[in-house]
């Protein structure tokens, strides 16, 4: 890809090539250094958390420097012990269940709805699209009680169902809209070609659109992972017993505004809780980046 740019610059530039390429090299280096500096700003908080996680509690708030004067692993050992007799193994497993099901739900349900909005024609389409957008505009706090009553009647309180089932019903309209925008970026000729080959709407969706919207699906997976992992409001409302708690709830459990908090444990476990998200992001960003240009639009 960088070749392309190179070529284009060379052809458009009237200056001698050698002069140009030194300039370009300087430009690239400056860019690189700036990016590196930016990276430090981005990473500072993690460094700070990392350093705090190795400090004893009394040092966390008194020592300003990033390098702990005395290193302790106790926060990790003690933090992993968890809360109310449940260790972080339980909380991780719970988080993975919630996150995994949420990703699956969002990918299936949102892509179906998005396909209908982007490509199919049906009655009340515009109104329904507006309803979809409007459903994102009301703060969850005022929808909470009716939803809670519903889930309570279904006997779903203190299970993962109130957190997961809505994803299979495409309630995250954010992703529907995202996918709609992506599908509308896919040339219609492809649909038409498939239709000529005898594909119906269902086949067009499964064989053309779904594979071609990989970047949007990967984005959905990444965001669902992070947002579900970090979401604490619905989790603390619906999950009551520590055995059902997720990592995020357990992290909140370490802190108490009315008394002494377990800061060291909290930082240590916060660092650990970043690892799955980070690994997931690294693994999936490859798919995101390679996206359409290699999945064979040509």
């Amino acid at each position, binding site marked *: 890809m960088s070749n392309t*740019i190179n070529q*284009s*610059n060379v*052809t*458009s530039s009237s200056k001698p090539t050698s002069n140009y390429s030194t300039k370009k090299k300087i430009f*690239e280096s400056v860019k690189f250094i700036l990016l590196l500096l930016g990276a430090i*700003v981005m*990473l500072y*908080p993690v460094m*700070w*958390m990392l350093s705090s996680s190795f400090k004893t509690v009394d040092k966390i708030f008194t020592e300003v420097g990033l390098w702990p004067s005395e290193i302790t692993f106790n926060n990790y050992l003690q933090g992993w012990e968890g809360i109310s007799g449940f260790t972080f193994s339980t909380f991780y497993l719970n988080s993975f269940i919630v996150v995994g099901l949420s990703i699956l739900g969002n990918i299936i*349900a*949102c892509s*179906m*709805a998005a396909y209908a909005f982007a490509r199919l*024609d049906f009655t009340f389409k515009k109104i329904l699209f507006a*309803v979809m*957008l*409007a*459903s994102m*505009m*009301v*703060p969850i706090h*005022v*929808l909470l*009680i*009716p*939803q809670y009553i519903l889930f309570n009647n279904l006997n779903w309180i203190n299970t993962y169902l109130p957190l997961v089932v*809505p994803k299979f*019903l*495409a*309630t995250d309209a954010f992703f529907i*809209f*995202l996918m709609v*925008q*992506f599908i*509308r*970026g896919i040339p*219609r000729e492809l649909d038409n070609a498939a239709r000529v080959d005898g594909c119906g709407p269902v086949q067009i969706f499964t064989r053309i659109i779904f594979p071609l919207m990989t*970047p*949007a699906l*990967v*984005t959905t997976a990444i965001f669902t992972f992070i*947002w579900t992992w*970090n979401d604490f409001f619905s989790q603390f409302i619906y999950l009551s017993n520590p055995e059902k708690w997720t990592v995020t709830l357990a*992290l*909140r459990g370490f*802190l108490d505004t009315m008394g002494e908090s377990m800061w060291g444990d*909290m*930082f240590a476990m*916060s660092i650990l809780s*970043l690892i799955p*998200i*980070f690994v997931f992001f690294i693994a999936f*960003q490859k798919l*995101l*980046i390679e*996206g359409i*240009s290699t999945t064979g639009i*040509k």
Partner: protein
Amino acid sequence: MISRFWHKNKIPLLFLSPWLIGVTILAFIPMIASLYLAFTNYNMLQAPTWVGLENFNTMLNSDSRFFQSLKVTFIYVFLGVPLQLIVAFSLATVLNRGVKGLSFFRAIYYVPSILGPSVAIAVLWRQLFGMEGIFNDFVSIFGLEPQSWISDPSTSLYTLIVLLVWQFGSPMVIFLAGLKQIPSDLYEAAAIDGAGPAYMLFKITLPLITPIIFFNLVMQIIGAFQAFTPAYIIGGGTGGTLDSTLFYTLYLYIKAFTQFEMGYASAMAWFLLVIIATFTGLLFLTARKWVHYQD
């Protein structure tokens, strides 16, 4: 008649059915319930009582905190969102290609967004922008007096805007995904025709990515109007000093769960819906002029 309706909508309904069920049960019905509650006095512990327009009346005529929360939210939305999107778009184009260690940088620049609105970030932000924070070391280079940026009412909101801009990862990833969707042969063809980078940016990248810019703009605005967690977590559940970080949704939350006025909170929610819908509607109207779809 019915059979024609059925014939036309059979396939779309198949695709829409999960969403239709979800939106009806989990959004539409609760929204109607909250619309009813907006006209009642409802403390959550007892049955609601009908009060007509009283909530709206109080809200618009005698609640100074309500207007404060509107002001805070508008600044946050109209300053924070454009800044965040500009940063996200610039970095997405830079990180799209042509730099050494691309995937490394992409991952690093996404880290702040992974951290999310966690308790750790709340502590960190207080450390950064507090009296003893390193931000004061930084501004002292320019000869500024140290101060508590996070609790001074004239600056505290801006520390939250910095947080929003700093967590630009989500729109950046969406931009990246959008950039990837642009077929590379367009660039190749332009290169053969001798086009420069500026031409490619303005004539290929920008027009083709307008649906994604539009998406990010709409979603970030909808999201920022409802911003809650940053202020909730960093302000410890209050609106900060002199209500300087009293976001609209935070005030709504305080009304509902601290003051036990869910009826009033519902009224606020519907007022917010109207505001957001207006801005979103305007964006959709202008979209015809500048958003280009492939279909």
